[in-house]
């Protein structure tokens, strides 16, 4: 396979998918733990156990989000520009919620006042739950398309409102992502804690796995029969300089299943979501959270892949002017930039994964209440 | 190439930091070697004690914290020296130094050999009652270990507290305060010595 422009455009679709999956798996469990924090941790010490289970590594996990943002900027500048300026308040809401995390982790246990600590606990809850919901909502809106168009200078205009983003289908997608990440976080917690906390995690896993599977199935049916998908009816050469104004697109119900009709093996991916989630519940029941965590990671990855494959090659469909939709063929960077970024990713990502694994290995083991008591001035 | 100058600059700056502090360490260890410790007890001697007292007064002044000064005299010293000779006298001094070291806090309190038969102790942060507890323990230990030898009165201890006994007229200059404090402690020590048997007196 030679690295021509067309191939690179496709490769970058895979890379951004990979970064998103990395983000969902790695930062996903941090957000899940944040959401569970006030409920699974009943006393101050139990909450500190939860915090310290993720505290030393959550910061690195968040970088998947930042890097995905940067990669989006570099690989698909038009998507970066259009999506973030269009979904202005949604993104700001995510950011404001995320602000609470770095400070929450670092500052919470630096003062003994219970009101101070409880305030930060709820801050960390918001920092976990709000982005988890909103990322789902964003995906829900991508599947429906958002109202935007370009002028002749390729300046984008968003014509919807913030409240329009919170439509029923998007909210359902929000439930999918929240329940998925909470389940994922609970599995991680069960792996890193013991006794009462681990028992509570088991319960949480069962509950949220159920919600997750039901909402995922419902969203799938809705996508197939309820909302309009998009398909390209004509487009120029795929390796041409990207210009999103030179194609035609039509909307039709069920269009998001075209790829699945074309390649039957794709059905394996959503099937894996169900299989893995049921396995997770089973494995956590019999006390094997380590393997269950691999299972839930696969489930998380497959959810993103399911959505990605059904939309391919669309990235950001426009509901108001469908022909202005952004696809992987006409919103990417130049050939040179994609090449530079390709090699940079190929070089740095394995290094990142290597030292991240080392850090996790060094910091492995269960966190206990006793350990928090012994290190109460240094632990989070 | 500015990137190259950055690498150089960082290396230079870090080297400056490291060398500067290693230089300080070298100086300090030289100072420590040159400082005169009492050869017998390895405690600091009177001159350094006076410097330490001055520094403690200044520290406590800026931080508005109290401290206590103790003078511990080994009452049996003279009689042991006369009756049993130099060696036994030295032994009893060593024993007393040992007790004092054990009853005070390492790195925090200052212990000095003030003169042949007297030790001085600075207890930063301690009010007179806290100092009295420590003094009582020293007294008891000394009586237990050295008491059987000849006389009943083993050690006498005088205690004074800063700033209560340090400021002659309101806020004074440091040197005057050192003097006043030592005078106050010394007079309590004298009173203790006039009493019988391992006494301690607070100012």
């Amino acid at each position, binding site marked *: 396979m030679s690295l021509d422009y067309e191939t690179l455009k496709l490769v970058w679709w895979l890379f951004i998918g990979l970064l998103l999956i990395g983000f969902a798996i790695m930062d996903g469990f941090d957000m899940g733990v944040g959401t569970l924090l006030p409920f699974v941790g009943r006393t101050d010490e139990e909450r500190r156990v939860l915090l310290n289970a993720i505290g030393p590594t959550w910061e690195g996990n*968040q970088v998947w989000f930042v890097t995905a943002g940067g990669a989006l900027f570099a690989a698909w500048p038009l998507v970066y520009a259009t999506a973030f300026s269009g979904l202005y308040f949604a993104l700001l809401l995510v950011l404001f919620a995320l602000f609470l995390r770095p400070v929450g982790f670092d500052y919470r246990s630096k003062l003994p006042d219970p009101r101070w600590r409880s305030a930060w606990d709820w801050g960390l809850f918001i920092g976990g739950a709000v982005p988890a919901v909103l990322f789902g909502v964003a995906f829900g809106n991508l599947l429906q398309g958002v109202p935007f168009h370009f002028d002749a200078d390729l300046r984008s205009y968003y014509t919807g409102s913030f409240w329009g983003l919170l439509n029923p289908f998007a909210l359902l997608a929000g439930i999918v992502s929240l329940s998925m990440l909470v389940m994922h976080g609970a599995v991680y917690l069960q792996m890193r804690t013991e006794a009462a906390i681990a028992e509570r995690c088991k319960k949480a896993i069962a509950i949220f796995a159920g919600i997750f599977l039901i909402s995922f199935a419902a969203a799938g049916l809705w996508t197939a029969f309820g909302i309009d998908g998009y398909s390209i009816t004509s487009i120029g050469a795929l390796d041409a300089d990207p210009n999103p104004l030179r194609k035609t697109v039509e909307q039709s119900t069920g269009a998001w299943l075209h790829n699945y009709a074309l390649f039957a093996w794709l059905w394996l991916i959503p099937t894996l979501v169900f299989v893995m989630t049921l396995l997770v519940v089973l494995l956590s029941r019999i006390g094997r959270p380590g393997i269950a965590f691999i299972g839930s990671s696969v489930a998380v990855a497959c959810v993103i892949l399911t959505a990605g494959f059904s939309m391919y090659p669309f990235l950001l469909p426009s509901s108001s002017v469908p022909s202005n939709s952004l696809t992987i063929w006409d919103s990417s960077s130049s050939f040179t930039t994609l090449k530079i970024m390709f090699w940079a990713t190929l070089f740095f990502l394995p290094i990142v994964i290597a030292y991240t694994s080392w850090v996790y290995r060094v910091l492995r083991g269960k966190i206990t209440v006793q350990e928090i008591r012994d290190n109460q001035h240094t632990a989070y | 190439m500015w990137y190259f100058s950055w690498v150089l600059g960082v290396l230079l700056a870090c080297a400056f930091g490291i060398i*500067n502090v290693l230089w300080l360490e070298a100086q300090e260890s030289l100072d420590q070697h040159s400082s005169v410790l009492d050869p017998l007890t390895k405690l600091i001697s009177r001159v350094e004690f006076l410097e330490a007292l001055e520094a403690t007064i200044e520290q406590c002044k800026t931080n508005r914290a109290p401290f206590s000064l103790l003078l511990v005299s080994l009452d049996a010293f003279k009689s042991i020296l006369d009756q049993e000779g130099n060696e036994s006298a030295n032994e009893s001094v060593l024993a007393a130094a040992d007790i004092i070291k054990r009853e005070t806090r390492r790195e925090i309190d200052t212990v000095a050999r003030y003169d042949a038969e007297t030790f001085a102790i600075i207890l930063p942060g301690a009010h007179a009652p806290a100092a009295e507890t420590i003094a009582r323990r020293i007294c008891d230990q000394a009586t237990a270990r050295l008491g059987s030898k000849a006389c009943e009165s083993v050690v006498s201890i005088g205690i004074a507290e800063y700033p209560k006994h340090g400021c002659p007229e309101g806020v004074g200059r440091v040197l005057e305060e050192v003097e006043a404090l030592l005078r106050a402690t010394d007079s309590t020590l004298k009173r203790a010595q006039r009493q019988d048997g391992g006494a301690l007196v607070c100012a």
Partner: protein
Amino acid sequence: MISEEVVDLSRLQFAITALYHFLFVPLTLGLSFILAIMESVYVMTGKQIYKDMTRFWGKLFGINFALGVTTGLTLEFQFGTNWAYYSHYVGDVFGVPLAIEGLAAFFLESTLIGLFFFGWDRISRVQHLAVTWLLALGVNLSALMILIANGWMQNPVGAEFNFETMRMEVSSFADVVFNPAGQVKFVHTVAGGYCTGAMFVLSISAYYLLKRRDQAFAVRSFTVAAGFGLAAALSVIVLGDESGYTDGKVQKLKVAAIEAEWETEEPPAAFTVIGFPDQEKMETRYALRIPWVLGLIAPRSVDEPIIGLKDFLVQNEQRIRNGMIAYALLQKLRNGEDDAETRARFKAYQKNLGYGLLLKKYTPNVIDATEEQITMAARDTIPNVAPLFWTFRVMVACGFIMLFVFAASFYVCSTGTVMKHRWLLRLALYCLPLPWIASEMGWIVAEYGRQPWSIAEILPTFMSASSRSAGELYLSLAGFIGFYTLLLVIELFLMLKYARLGPSSLHSGRYYHEKIGGAA
């Protein structure tokens, strides 16, 4: 077209979020190396006190780092939210260093910082030392990538305009990375960060020394800071001197504006120490000038002139006219008339396209601009002189005061007389805010001085903003100011609390407050 109000609000929001971010970044940059130094000495000498120093200053580092990360999150996404057209227009170039920053640097520092705090008992001394050095390296690599991106905004090299995609595209990535403007900015900025870290440690140590608490600890911290700071302050001044005089005409225009050089003088030019620049009349009142000096420090020659702002005005007016031609040709090309001749002509004129776009502020069609509009657009190319003139002078003054404090501290450290110079300790304590003032002023000089461009000579700021409404921007701006200020107050509260407490906050039982507490 977007309104001027929206552009101004977007600029204000960017400036505020960036200035807040830049309160925390310089300290992170400098303190990370100081921690590495302290830990190196710990590993070299094996003395516990150096471990305590690393842990205590590390605690303050953590408090600061948390807010640096928080405020940095915004910046990664704000180009998209508020500067959508900018993101589209230059994302092909500008996005690359940002993405690599995430991959190569931010991952490194964020992953290792957990190990720095929680790895003391889990890895060997040497491994931990390596973690600390890599942390410092990661922090500095982050700054490198960001300043490469920023340097490209000041001096956009290695990129070409593509009319097919309506944007700038990378032609040579090596040129972008080795852009002299970016290099010099990087070196100057991180060196400023090192000064900040050193002054932070120096001031707080001076406070303990003045209070006569934990002297052994404070003297050692003071000494490290004095050594590191002296080298940093020297390089920041030497390299800062360079940073204005690198390639690029916009940089030259900026120098003329900073120095309030309205006219082109007979070289070597005189240096205006102080005066009151008047933008309207294009003159500086009550100027105190030293002959020859500017000519010698700026172009470093006696016969090369510094072009005055009035001459730039004339030049730029001509470029705007050429830009109109370029824009007309671009319209032709976009409408499908891309014959060889039009392409060739466009190629000849395209470097003036940005100047043509300046007219978009006055007329969306550009080519129908009136003479009056051209004059107004040309006037826009001259940045506002007075703020630049003053912020630059404040920054330089701060720099020299810091140099003096570091040099004096270095001297008293090497003679072992720190405690005998209480005036110096007091001076060091009062100098605590100086590096932050200098950093913020430096940011203003660099970025306000770039106006009216977001990408020098390529894309006017006016065109870069997203098409949002003013109401939305008021809301988000209020949100940012409120939230950031709240977080800043909390940070300062914790920082002060822990700085006051000093190394006693380690609960090791070895330091002042615990000793005193233990006795009482």
